[in-house]
């Protein structure tokens, strides 16, 4: 939850405040709202700054948006705000999402905009129906496009969007070959503290990943009699050869110090 539950974050708007990359930066602006919320207003960087601090300051024309992991990395490294990313196999149920939000955690949620575009909350004049990033807290729903910049564009009014609308939008998010599924949510949650992580690898084989320029370039398989060590929080790395990304942690001590291994070996302590 937030350390100041009554604090209401200021909205960050991607079109009117986002500069040259604004149209690509809903997730970055949502991350700015999350940082604002988590720090009770002490840090409010704006989405444009999040983009410039990200691993992709110049958008890749093939996929110019950002993912939750990229903005979580900026939040942690530059603002000391840990965002717990729950995507892929670790997506949360809608019930858990709501329990966390009502309990005081902020959340950047990835949605399909199609259901929202069909309502009065449409912030893009019936021209956008794709994947979108938004921020939600117990106080309000923050759509980075909802600046009321002209007639027909929804203007942020500090309310929480209807829950069934958000549930449907989250479930319809396109994740490549399918949608997330009704009742599931891909989101990144604010936390009170930066948790410590420990990796525990049982006897047997594990993969050591090689990282270059922020991407996985190879991995090999090692045998161990088991070990455990402190490690970094999970991060997501793209691997071209696999055509997908992997959650990895970096070991911070012991005989395997600096190795990158699968985050499924790690847990919060």
């Amino acid at each position: 939850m937030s350390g100041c539950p009554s604090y209401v974050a200021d909205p960050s708007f991607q079109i009117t405040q986002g500069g040259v990359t604004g149209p690509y930066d809903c997730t970055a602006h949502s991350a700015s709202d999350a940082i604002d919320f988590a720090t009770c207003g002490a840090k409010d960087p704006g989405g444009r700054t999040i983009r410039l601090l990200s691993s992709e300051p110049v958008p890749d024309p093939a996929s110019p948006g950002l993912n939750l992991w990229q903005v979580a990395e900026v939040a942690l490294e530059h603002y000391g705000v840990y965002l717990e990313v729950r995507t892929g196999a670790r997506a949360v149920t809608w019930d858990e999402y709501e329990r966390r939000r009502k309990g005081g955690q902020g959340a950047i949620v990835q949605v399909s905009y199609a259901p929202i575009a069909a309502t009065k909350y449409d912030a893009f004049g019936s021209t956008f129906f794709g994947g979108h990033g938004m921020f939600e807290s117990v106080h309000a729903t923050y759509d980075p496009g909802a600046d009321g910049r002209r007639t027909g564009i929804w203007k942020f009014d500090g309310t929480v969007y209807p829950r069934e609308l958000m549930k449907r939008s989250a479930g319809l998010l396109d994740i490549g070959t399918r949608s997330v599924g009704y009742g599931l949510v891909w989101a990144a949650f604010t936390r009170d503290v930066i948790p410590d992580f420990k990796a525990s690898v049982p006897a047997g084989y594990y993969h050591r990943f090689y990282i270059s320029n922020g991407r996985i370039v190879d991995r090999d398989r090692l045998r161990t009699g088991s070990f455990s060590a402190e490690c970094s929080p999970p991060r997501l790395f793209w691997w071209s050869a696999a055509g997908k990304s992997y959650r990895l942690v970096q070991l911070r001590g012991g005989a395997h110090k600096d190795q990158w291994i699968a985050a499924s070996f790690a847990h919060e302590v």
Partner: protein
Amino acid sequence: MTDDPIDQDDEQAEPAPPTDDEPDAEPDVRNDPIPLQPGDPAPEDDPAAPFTEDPT
């Protein structure tokens, strides 16, 4: 740090190809670009990030 003392026997095996059943693998899902419309503010010229492609 709590390395277990029995871990002294790493040995490298053959590279393992990616598989589809790994819990740590997931698609890279990014937000989609917003198409600007007449009446929307034009993106400002920003030398800090010289990205000039038309987002539409």
